């Protein structure tokens, strides 16, 4: 019998994950609006608009980090151009915000001020539909998605991999930045879009608007996490992990990696685009510097700091680095680039699995102490045998079939073991703990031994033949 889709969907996230999401939803959708709108501004728990904007901005970055983690952490493709997709989404939505200014601009014209300044009298053709909110939202997803699809199609089809792919994505975002810097491109050149007034007719700086934008950002993040979690625990996600581990093997068992990579790559870009569309109205500006290569590298740093290959790691990394950045750019603005660089080196050298990796290894050590010398592999095997002590079983939130049939239990354990944010199988994704099989280095690939065997075999026959 197949497990119904809804059950599999619910099971893809451990119970603790669903609870954390619920708490977060309460925070973002209940507490923040109350703290900002209902409490008097001198109240101790009052949340100022500065904080709402800052947190809303970081929520958008967290979405980008999750999107980045799907392509880098889970599929092993490092993109150093994700800032482009984020900025494209921002520009697509920014066009709508520019049109919402209406005749309130400095020149009082129907078209945006920068066009008047350029001497243009009407909108360029690609601004078609920019007065429609629906079209803007669609474009914020479709435009980055289309760019990613076309780029990905050619790059993946030519089997461009590893550092080459990263460099090309970097070049792509740099080229786009230069293009957007030009005034003639029609997107405001250097200054980009700013001075927004309204969104859907509501004042963009009104407290209610801010709260709604914040709540939408939180919603997008949660959606991303639920969707991402389902993806990485599905067979699709296992194929992605397989592509990361041994792409040629994936081909020889009949999967076409091109389609898988293209799907997750395009999806990742679309999520970035949506995040950009929510980011722009909150910070009130979008300009080509969002496409600078440094921005894209920073996205990779968030994910590396939090922990690649775990969705929660990406969220933690984006939050931690951006809070640190906020503090530094106020207190010691000149030192932030050095801190960022140091962070990247330190994480690469000392915390290859990021913050989540460190927390996990501490948890494993503690558990190992409690179990009196039981190793983590034993724990994993225990899960397979259906032992009730395993947190994986609980994490599933659903009894694992209950038939006692080893394969059923095994498969349900397998179905929840994909990422294991909090489960007992922690650490199995830690490549450092995977020992090399015996014989790998000393026997199997030793051509001399193989040659010797053949020569001996033939020598035996030859002498026998000569004797006869």
């Amino acid at each position, binding site marked *: 019998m197949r497990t119904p889709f809804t059950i599999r969907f619910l099971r893809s996230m451990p119970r603790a994950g669903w609870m954390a999401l619920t708490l977060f939803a309460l925070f973002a959708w209940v507490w923040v609006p109350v703290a900002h709108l209902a409490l008097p501004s001198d109240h101790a728990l009052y949340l100022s608009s500065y904080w709402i904007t800052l947190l809303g901005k970081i929520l958008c970055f967290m979405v980008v980090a999750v999107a980045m983690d799907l392509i880098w952490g889970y599929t092993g493709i490092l993109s150093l151009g994700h800032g482009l997709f984020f900025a494209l989404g921002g520009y697509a939505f920014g066009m709508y915000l520019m049109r919402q200014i209406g005749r309130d601009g400095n020149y009082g014209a129907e078209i945006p001020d920068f066009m008047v300044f350029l001497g243009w009298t009407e909108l360029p053709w690609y601004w078609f539909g920019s007065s429609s909110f629906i079209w803007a939202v669609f474009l914020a997803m479709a435009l980055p998605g289309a760019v990613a699809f076309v780029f990905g199609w050619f790059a993946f089809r030519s089997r461009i991999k590893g550092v080459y792919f990263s460099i090309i994505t970097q070049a792509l975002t740099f080229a786009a930045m230069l293009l957007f810097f030009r005034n003639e491109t029609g997107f405001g050149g250097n200054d980009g879009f700013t001075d927004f007034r309204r969104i859907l007719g509501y004042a963009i700086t009104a407290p209610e608007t801010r709260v709604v934008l914040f709540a939408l950002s939180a919603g997008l993040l949660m959606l991303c996490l639920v969707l991402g979690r389902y993806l990485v625990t599905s067979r699709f996600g*296992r194929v992605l992990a397989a592509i990361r581990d041994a792409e040629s093997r994936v081909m020889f*068992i009949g999967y076409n990696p091109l389609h898988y990579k293209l799907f997750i790559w395009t999806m990742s870009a679309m999520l970035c685009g949506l995040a950009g569309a929510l980011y722009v109205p909150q910070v009130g500006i979008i300009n080509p510097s969002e496409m600078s290569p440094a921005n894209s590298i920073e996205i990779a740093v968030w994910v590396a700091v939090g922990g690649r290959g775990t969705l929660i790691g990406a969220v933690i990394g984006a939050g931690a680095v951006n809070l640190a950045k906020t503090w530094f750019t106020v207190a010691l603005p000149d030192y932030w680039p050095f801190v960022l660089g140091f962070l990247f080196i330190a994480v690469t050298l000392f915390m290859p699995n990021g913050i989540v990796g460190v927390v996990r290894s501490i948890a494993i050590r503690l558990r190992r102490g409690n179990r009196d010398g039981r190793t983590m592999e034993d724990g994993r095997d225990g899960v397979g045998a259906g032992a009730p002590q395993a947190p994986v079983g609980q994490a599933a939130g659903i009894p694992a079939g209950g038939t006692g049939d080893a394969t059923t239990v095994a*498969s349900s354990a*397998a179905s929840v073991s994909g990422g294991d944010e909090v489960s007992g199988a922690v650490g199995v994704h830690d490549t450092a703990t*995977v020992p090399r099989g015996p014989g790998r280095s000393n026997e199997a690939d030793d051509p001399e031994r193989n040659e010797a065997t053949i020569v001996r075999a033939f020598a035996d026959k030859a002498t026998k033949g000569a004797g006869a």
Partner: protein
Amino acid sequence: MSTETIDRPAAVDGVQAPGHRDAPSSHVVVPGALDLSHNVILYLEDISVSFDGFKALNKLSLAVDAGELRCIIGPNGAGKTTMMDVITGKTRPDKGKAFFGQTLDLTRMTEPAIAHAGIGRKFQKPTVFEQLSAFENLELAMKADKRVRRALFASLDDAQRDRIATVLRRIRLSDHADRPAGLLSHGQKQWLEIGMLLMQEPRLLLLDEPVAGMTDEETERTAELFVSLAGSHSLVVVEHDMSFVEALGGKVTVLHEGSVLAEGSLAHVQEDPRVIEVYLGR
């Protein structure tokens, strides 16, 4: 030349087109399906491949019958792995023909398409997905619709779970089903990879040094497994271990400098003076 008789079950003998009555002596070509009407599953003719002037394969011709167990031996650099690369679509030959059955032109197919058509390959180095469990490795290899939109919503039914369990028993990894494949021993990884091949339900298995790094006992069991697979499957085994080749007992092809040097039973090729020359005269 061949001394071994190989049993061929009726299943591999030719594809009968349904509803075809008028000309019983001929058959209808079904596009994309394996056609074994002439009982040859793999046919290579005058295949040449060169890398930067080095001729890895030089007019190699080889035919493997349906249900046959063929061993390929030859010194290092004889072109064994390149031959596998050509068959599986990884390398395009400069010249020559490569057919799977009567109709499938391997030189025009992509790797995944060749895998779908029914050729499974085991690499020289055990290549399994180290971060996934043994169970998941087999699940991914299982014969199924492997397109993205299927994989997004795929789940296992009972029959499929049973198949995975059966293969796990056959490769003796039932107790390690949920261990990450990276934690398995070298021999176990080799077996897991063979298990992945079985899950694919291929018609032709290409096995590149399948027993490298295995203990004697494991080697013996592998030989038993392969012999039991022959007949219902065709196998091409590249191997250095002569006792293993002897245990398999099939026809042996000796490659040298990119072409076939000798072919026949193991005893036959071992007495061939040219073969002895190649192995000892260096």
